[in-house]
């Protein structure tokens, strides 16, 4: 897979923008706490498939944008995303060959790691009592992974990236 292809890069940016839109989509109040971390899942997918193209820098930038988007302390998502993407980049060769179920297990760990980091930062900031619902996005995210995977695969293969 050659590196310099702007068309493919546009696709990556577009999918990330969609993920950010989903992130802030107005769900009904009861469902809102189940909204998984779409941006991270899309980032993981692209970092596994195009490790030369989507690196830690991208993860960091989009993390920062997500921080602004969701009104968090700046750097919170940037930190979580860059750490998770670092792990993905290290393991991408193995991950690509994993069957879907095994991949899901890995995604679960990734989402859990990111959520844990966010939890730690939030606790340092001001020890707040958090609902048990704070951890739901990890599980829903894992369940949504096959959808994300197939969809992005379709996006990637719809017009082959040369």
């Amino acid at each position, binding site marked *: 897979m050659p590196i310099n292809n702007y068309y493919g890069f546009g696709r990556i940016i577009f999918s990330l*923008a969609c993920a950010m839109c989903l992130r*802030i989509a107005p769900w009904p109040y009861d469902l809102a706490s189940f909204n998984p971390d779409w941006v991270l899942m899309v980032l993981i997918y692209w970092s596994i498939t195009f490790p030369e193209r989507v690196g830690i820098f991208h993860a960091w930038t989009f993390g920062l*944008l997500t921080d602004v988007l*969701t*009104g968090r302390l700046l750097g919170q998502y940037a*930190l979580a995303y860059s750490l998770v993407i670092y792990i993905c980049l290290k393991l991408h060769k193995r991950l690509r060959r994993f069957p879907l179920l095994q991949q899901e297990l890995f995604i679960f760990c990734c989402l859990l790691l990111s959520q844990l980091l966010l939890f730690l930062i939030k606790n340092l900031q001001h020890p707040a009592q958090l609902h048990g619902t704070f951890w739901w996005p990890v599980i829903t995210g894992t369940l949504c992974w096959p959808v994300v995977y197939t969809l992005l695969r379709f996006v990637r293969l719809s017009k082959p990236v040369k």
Partner: protein
Amino acid sequence: MAVITSVALLITEQRGQQLDFLRATLSFFIEPLRHLVDLPTVLIEQTTESINSYVELKNENGRLRDEQLIHQTRLLKLEALEKENIRLRALLENSFKLGEQVLIAELLAINMAPYEHILVVNKGTRFGVHPQQPVLDANGVVGQVFRALPLSSEIMLITDPNHAIPVQVNRNGLLTIAVGSGQPNRLILPFLPSNADIHPGDLLITSGLGGTFPQGYPVAIVDEFTSQPNKAFASITATPTAKLDRNRELMIVWSNSAPVPLIAKPQAPETAVTEENAHQ
């Protein structure tokens, strides 16, 4: 490298306001996304408006006209009362705050974080909005501006678990603090003893203490009072009068922070589209 930068960012932001510029710059990339997400809601609203039948519109118009008439009559009286109040206060050598300007901001239908009650509206520092401004709707207090970006601002609702608002009971002037519960449409009054003079149905209004909220706006109605004999404080809950989950138009308020001793002209902030608010 990324980790170090993120941690540095986190620490700087925690310490102070130096990063506001960076956030403002980044928010320009984010703004289109916010409006894009809001688009379906706007479209649906516009279509329902255009489909509405003639009869319905006529009915609504009639109803609104009646309401307008009633409000006008009340306002006539209010003005006289306000003047009288100012005169009386002048006699008592007491100062009186008056003159509030409002800016109408429209809600963007987006969801920031599930366990926090934060809304985004489409007016920001370009219109002169600044943090800690009170936000109202037609029925009562909604919350306060939490962070102002150039093109939008984030509003923390009074029901957010991190929010507290100084209130007083309208009936007898009992002062207390209403804390957000984290549930929509529920406030908690955790600091009142079991023998406090407060009943279900009492109206809570802003007390003006603390300086953020102007005095005298309705906040909530008490719904439940349970005395807990084994504890120091009673458990009291209240329902906000503002329609927190239904309104699309909110009012951001500028209150003159300097108390005026006698009748004086309120100053309008230059950038804001202002309107006299005669509630005080």
